[in-house]
């Protein structure tokens, strides 16, 4: 018995570790969207704020990126879903000896690094344009160097493989006898396809489209080469993250995570509802009526959670218009100022001691009171604070900032560098 308990405990621990590795970073990132600190962080927590959503909303580069991402996504869906469907139908008919070669060919794009696909697309269409003698500025040349055109082609080359896999799974359950029957009854091949195969494939087409759109929307490796002078959401984000980060990106991530959670819950609720109705139809379960909950929510925890979350979201968005963290921000600023004053005093005392001991030519027996507690942070630390590397990306809340104190000595120079203030002025 005890070994069984041991297994259960270790399984539990393992599940907790796995899911915190998977979800922890997303939770932390979501939290940073609500911290007023200019650098995305959860500790030290400054103020609860919605301002980063405003910053995000007013960011024209991100809006432009989303716009082009959607256009490219739609183009990719249209192209890759139709290519994937055709490829999967051909797979069921292809000559048996050729089948495995053919399958390797249509699955290979998934395994080719996205960077390679992007480069090859860019190079090929550039050279095709030259080969066809399209001069600079001609319509063909413009098309072949158009970032949207190239990105749709580059992304479709591997997303079609994903779509194909979805279709192959569905086609395995298709009864070709149905098409034969339709043909025997005088339907043309096109009619048989439209009236028999296409309706059967409709759920697969829907899920392949969603899959293709999401894959296109989040693609970076291929897009970064083929996009040329346009922007997509991912290339804008990558640029922002590399050049310096601020919590408005966390805000965007929070929105995406929330939408994903809603979509997952809605899908799960829908699936359960279908399963339950199926069970009712077959007489295995009773159709419950009455009760407090509407019928689609009974026995459907996903639906209940979905509705609750939607309610919370509406309340939060409603209150967000009125909530203002100004009071809190002032307090934080005052606390920071007090902290700076304290540090200045400390430093001055330190210098005083030092100069005294130097004057006496004695050994530095006093040392520097470096171990003074500053709330679990390295206060040793003046060294750290003044290190140049610290300033570049780290102007977060525990760094002293605000206006230059009158008693400040030259030693503070770096702390008040303009970059440092930039980040905090938003607070």
């Amino acid at each position, binding site marked *: 018995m005890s070994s069984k308990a041991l297994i259960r405990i270790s399984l539990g621990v393992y599940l907790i570790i796995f899911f915190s590795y998977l979800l922890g970073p997303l939770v932390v990132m979501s939290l940073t969207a609500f911290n007023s600190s200019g650098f995305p962080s959860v500790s030290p927590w400054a103020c609860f704020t919605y301002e980063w959503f405003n910053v995000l909303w007013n960011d024209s580069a991100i809006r432009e990126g989303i716009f082009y991402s959607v256009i490219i996504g739609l183009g990719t869906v249209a192209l890759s879903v139709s290519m994937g469907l055709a490829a999967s139908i051909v797979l069921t008919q292809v000559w048996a000896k050729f089948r*495995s070669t053919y399958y*390797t060919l249509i699955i290979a794009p998934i395994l080719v690094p996205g960077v390679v696909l992007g*480069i*090859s697309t860019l190079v090929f269409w550039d050279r095709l344009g030259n080969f066809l003698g399209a001069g600079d500025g001609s319509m063909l040349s413009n098309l072949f160097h158009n970032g949207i055109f190239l990105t749709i082609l580059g992304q479709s080359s591997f997303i079609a493989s994903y779509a194909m896999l979805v279709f192959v799974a569905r086609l395995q359950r298709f009864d070709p006898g149905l098409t034969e029957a339709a043909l025997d009854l005088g339907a043309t091949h096109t009619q048989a396809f439209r009236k028999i195969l296409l309706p059967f494939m409709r759920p697969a087409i829907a899920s392949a489209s969603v899959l293709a759109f999401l894959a296109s929307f989040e693609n970076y490796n291929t897009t970064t*080469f083929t996009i040329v002078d346009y922007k997509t959401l991912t290339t804008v984000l990558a640029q922002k993250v590399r050049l310096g980060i601020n919590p408005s*990106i966390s805000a965007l*991530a929070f929105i*995406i995570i929330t939408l994903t959670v809603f979509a997952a*819950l809605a899908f799960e609720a829908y699936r359960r509802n279908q399963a339950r109705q199926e069970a009712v139809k077959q007489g295995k379960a009773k159709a419950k009526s009455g009760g407090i909950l509407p019928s689609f929510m009974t026995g459907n925890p996903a639906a209940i959670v979905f509705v609750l979350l939607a309610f919370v979201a509406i309340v939060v968005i409603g209150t967000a218009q009125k909530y203002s963290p100004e009071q809190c921000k002032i307090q934080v600023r005052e606390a920071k100022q007090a902290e700076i004053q304290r540090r200045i005093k400390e430093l001055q005392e330190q210098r005083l001691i030092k100069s005294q001991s130097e004057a006496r030519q004695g050994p530095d027996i006093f040392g520097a009171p470096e171990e003074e507690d500053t709330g679990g942070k390295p206060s040793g630390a003046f060294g750290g604070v003044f290190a140049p590397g610290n300033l570049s990306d*780290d102007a977060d809340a525990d760094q002293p900032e605000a206006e230059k104190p009158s008693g400040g000595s030259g030693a503070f120079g770096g702390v008040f560098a303009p970059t440092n203030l930039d980040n905090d002025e938003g607070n």
Partner: protein
Amino acid sequence: MKNKMIFSEFFRNNGVVMGSLLMGLVGFWLIFLVILPQLSMLDFSFRFNLPPADVGGPKDVYTLSNYQHLLYGSDATHQTYNTVDLWVFVKTIVAAMAVTIFNIFLCYPLAYFLGQSKGSGFVRLLVVLLIIPYWINEILRAFALRIIFGDSGLLNEALMFLHLTREPIDFIRQDIALYAGLGYAYILLMLFPMYNVIESLDRNQIEAARDMGASWPRIHRRIVIPHAKPGIVSGATMVFMLSAGALAAPQILGGPSSLWFTQLVYQWFFNSLNWHQGAAYAIVLLVSTIIIVLTVMRIFKVNMGDIGK
């Protein structure tokens, strides 16, 4: 491969309109989006980087110089090796393998647990929880890890709060963040193929082995793992290829001094504007990763047909 008879049969089965539509779409995909671009890139990588006026002229001849640059650097006498780029290449391949192996060990228990405990509400919940990070942008996931691993990130704050370390540890510079990020980015591509094959394993086989007195490690070694092999190899292939070809995670989580091989390709394209050199590096990456994958598949006796199931 295909002869006329096959074609005529194909058109007889599908009708002329549908047949040509199908052939047209598949042909466009395979020829114009896959085969010709790859061949074009291969050809491109064997040419000099010439100004536009000289392209197609007498100077436009084939050369190995782009590949020699990876081996010898800009040293024309080929005396010294291009240690910087070669080291980046080796590091990329080895690290991608390490990430793959790490993911196999991390995912196997969960895949087994999910695959064998069927239908309970708790398992459905776990699967829904798994799907959520799957659809978050790769860049945002790397960004999330950067928040955690940064100098004043959560992990350093926590370590210092617990007095485990006094100075913040530079996870970024030591590439710890990068490896964690790569493992994180593609972990679900390992989990789902494994989960799918283990789910199809008949539970009675395990029961039977246990009734006959087999120990747990033995059951896994003799029954579960052989059954799950196609899924494991398929997941491992995807994780390896994607990690070796990753660009976003190294750009965001990599240290300033260490590079990933794809970043070299990126630099050739966008910083040096030498597409030919970049294409040559990309070909090296593609060919070497494919050779490694095919070798592993041969060793474990898995077919290409198992990928993607």
